[in-house]
C-alpha cells in the first residue's frame, strides 16, 4: 500500500479529514525546508504538498508567485528539492509527500530520470498544474513504473466526461480546485463546492481534497465537512512571508495547529 493510500485509510478509520498544507520548497531558505516539513507533521499535517518553484507560475496568485521568486533566488531547483525529500525521509517514513508545480522543470530533467529519483528519495505523488491528462500519457508511464501517484486537478468548469477520464487515470487522491481563479483568490463559494462534490463522487472513488482560497480556520472547517481533505497553500505561504527565519517554524506550527483543530471539529 502506498503512503498516500495508507494515510487516507487511517484517517477514514478515525473518521477524520486530511489536512494537506502546501508551501514552496526553498522559501524562506533551503535550509529551513526540511525543518518546516517536520514541523507541519508535528502540528497535524497528514500529507505535505511541496511546491516546486517555476519562473512563470501562471496558475498562482501574487502570494505564491513571490514565494517562487524568493525560492529561485536562493538557488532552489528540482534536483535540490529531491535531495530535501530524501533528507526528510531519514526521520519520517510515513507522511506522504507530493511535489506540486509546473511541467517544464520535469521536462528538462526528463520524466524517466525524474520518476526514478522520486522513487529513490521517497516522493509519493506528483501534481503538474499545466499538464492535463491529454498531454500526460507518456509522463504517467514513467511515474507508474516507479510507483509514483499522478495527482490531478478538477475544477468548477470540469464537465462530466472529463471527470470520468480523470477518474481512470488518477491515483492517490484528487484535488478539487474550489474556485475559478488563481491560488490565494478570495472568491470561495461553499455552496458551489457542496453541489459539485457529489457529482465528482459518482466517478471518483479516490479521496477528494479541496483547495485554493482556504484562508482561515473557519473556511477550513466548512470545507472539511464536504470532502476528505483540505489543502491550505497561500495562507501558509503568507505566514512564511510574514515571519523571520527565527520565528517561521513557530508561526507556521501555530497556524497549522489551529487549522487541525478546526478540521477535526468539522
Amino acid at each position: 500500500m502506498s503512503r498516500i493510500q495508507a494515510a487516507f485509510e487511517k484517517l477514514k478509520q478515525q473518521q477524520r479529514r486530511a489536512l494537506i498544507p502546501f508551501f514552496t520548497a526553498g522559501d524562506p531558505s533551503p535550509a529551513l525546508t526540511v525543518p518546516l516539513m517536520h514541523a507541519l507533521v508535528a502540528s497535524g499535517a497528514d500529507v505535505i504538498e511541496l511546491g516546486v518553484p517555476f519562473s512563470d507560475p501562471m496558475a498562482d496568485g501574487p502570494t505564491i508567485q513571490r514565494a517562487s521568486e524568493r525560492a529561485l533566488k536562493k538557488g532552489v531547483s528540482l534536483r535540490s528539492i529531491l535531495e530535501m525529500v530524501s533528507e526528510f525521509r531519514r526521520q519520517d517514513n510515513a507522511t506522504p509527500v507530493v511535489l506540486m508545480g509546473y511541467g517544464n522543470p520535469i521536462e528538462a530533467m526528463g520524466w524517466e530520470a525524474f520518476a526514478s529519483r522520486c522513487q529513490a528519495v521517497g516522493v509519493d505523488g506528483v501534481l503538474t498544474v499545466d499538464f492535463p491528462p491529454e498531454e500526460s500519457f507518456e509522463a504517467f508511464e514513467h511515474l507508474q513504473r516507479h510507483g509514483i501517484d499522478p495527482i490531478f486537478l478538477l475544477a468548477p468548469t470540469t464537465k462530466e466526461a472529463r471527470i470520468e477520464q480523470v477518474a481512470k487515470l488518477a491515483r492517490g487522491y484528487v484535488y478539487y480546485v474550489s474556485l475559478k481563479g488563481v491560488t490565494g483568490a478570495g472568491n470561495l463559494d461553499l455552496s458551489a463546492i457542496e453541489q459539485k462534490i457529489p457529482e465528482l463522487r459518482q466517478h471518483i472513488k479516490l479521496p477528494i481534497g479541496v483547495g485554493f482560497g482556504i484562508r482561515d480556520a473557519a473556511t477550513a472547517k466548512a470545507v472539511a465537512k464536504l470532502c476528505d481533505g483540505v489543502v491550505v497553500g497561500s495562507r501558509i505561504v503568507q505566514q512564511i512571508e510574514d515571519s523571520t527565519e527565527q520565528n517561521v517554524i513557530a508561526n507556521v506550527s501555530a497556524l497549522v495547529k489551529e487549522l487541525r483543530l478546526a478540521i477535526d471539529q468539522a
Partner: protein
Amino acid sequence: MYNYPDSTGHFGQFGGIYMAETLIPAVEELAAQYLRYQNDPDFKAELAYELKHYVGRPSPIYHARRLSEHLGGAQIYLKREDLNHTGAHKINSAMGQALLARRMGKKRVIAETGAGMHGVATATVAARFGMECVVYMGAEDIQRQAPNVFRMKLLGATVVPVESGSKTLKDACNEAIRDWVTNVESTFYIFGTAAGPHPYPMMVRDFQCVIGNEARIQMPEMIGRQPDAVIACVGGGSNAIGLFHPYIEVPQVQIIGVEAGGFGIETGKHAAPLTANAKVGVLHGNKVYLMQDENGQITETHSISAGLDYPGVGPEHCLLKDIGRAQYVTSNDDEAIAAFDALCRFEGIIPALESSHALAHAIKIAPGMSTDKVLLVNLSGRGDKDMNTVAKLKGITL
C-alpha cells in the same frame, strides 16, 4: 500533403493543450466554436467585409527599388502590413477573434501585448464592437512603447502594467492567463500570436494567412511569378506563419524566418530559441523550443524590439524547422537599427523594429544574389511606436 495540426492540436511533437484544468473546457469550447464558424459562409463574409472596409485589405506589395539598387543584388519587395488600420498585421487576427467572440456571446476581451500593436489592435476591435477590453503589458514594455499605451487608452481599453518576472511579453501573457482563469465564463482571450494552447496556433495562423494568400496572387501580377524567398520576423510567429503557410507547398519558394539576435547569439542575450537550438519545453499552453536554463526555468530574453522579446516561438515554426521546410536565422539589434534607417532613407517608409529584423536579413543576403532574384519581405508593422526607442539609441530626447 502538409496538414497540421492534428485533431488534438499537435504539430508533430509540438503544440498541444498544456493548460490548468479550469481553462481546459474554455479552450475546448473555443476549438469547437472555431471549427463550427471557420467555414461558415456568413462568418467568412463578415470577416472579408471587415478586412476590406475597416482594415483596408488587401495590403499592397511594394518594390523597394532604390534600396535594391543600392544593394546591387536581389530585388526586395515588401508586403505592406504596415498600411493596415492600426499599423500592423495584428489586426488580421484580432478582427477574426473578435467576430468569433461575438458569436460566442462574450462581452469582455483580454489580451497580452509586447510592442503594443496587438494591444492596440484588440482595443480597436473592442471599440468597434462595443466590448470591454483589458490589455496586460509588461512594465518595461510600457516604458519603451509609450505611444501605444496612450493609443489603447484613447480606444477605451484598460492597460494593466505587469510588474512580475522580466516585466515583458511573457509576463504579460502569464497575467492574461490569470485573468482568464478567473473570468473564464465572461471573457474571450484574444491571443496575439500563433502560439499558446490549441486552437490558438491554428486559428491565429488561419486568420493571418490572408497575408500569404494575397501575396500568392499579387506576386505573379507584379513579376509574373512567385518570389525566390519569403522572409518574415519571428516573435511568437504570427506574421511569419501568415506569409509562410500558403507557400509551404510551393517548393521553389525558400522560407526564411528571422529571430531577434539581440546583442548576438553568442552573448546569450537574445530572443532566438530556434536559431540558438533551445531545448523543447512547455510554456503558455504549448510544447515548443524554449529558452531555459538546465533546471527548466525560463531565461530572460533580450531584444531591442519588444514584440520579438519572447523566450518561445509558435509550434508550427518548430515543426517547419525540424522538417527543414523553413530556415531560421537572426538579425542582431544593431543590424535591425541599420535596416530601419535604410528603409527610412531609401524608401520613405518607417518600419517597426520587429519588421526591421526581417528586412535586415534581406539586406544581408541581397548583395550576394543576382539582380533577377526576388525577396519578399513581410513589413509586419510601421515604426511610429518605436520613436522613443530609436531616439534614445541616437542620444536624442523627444
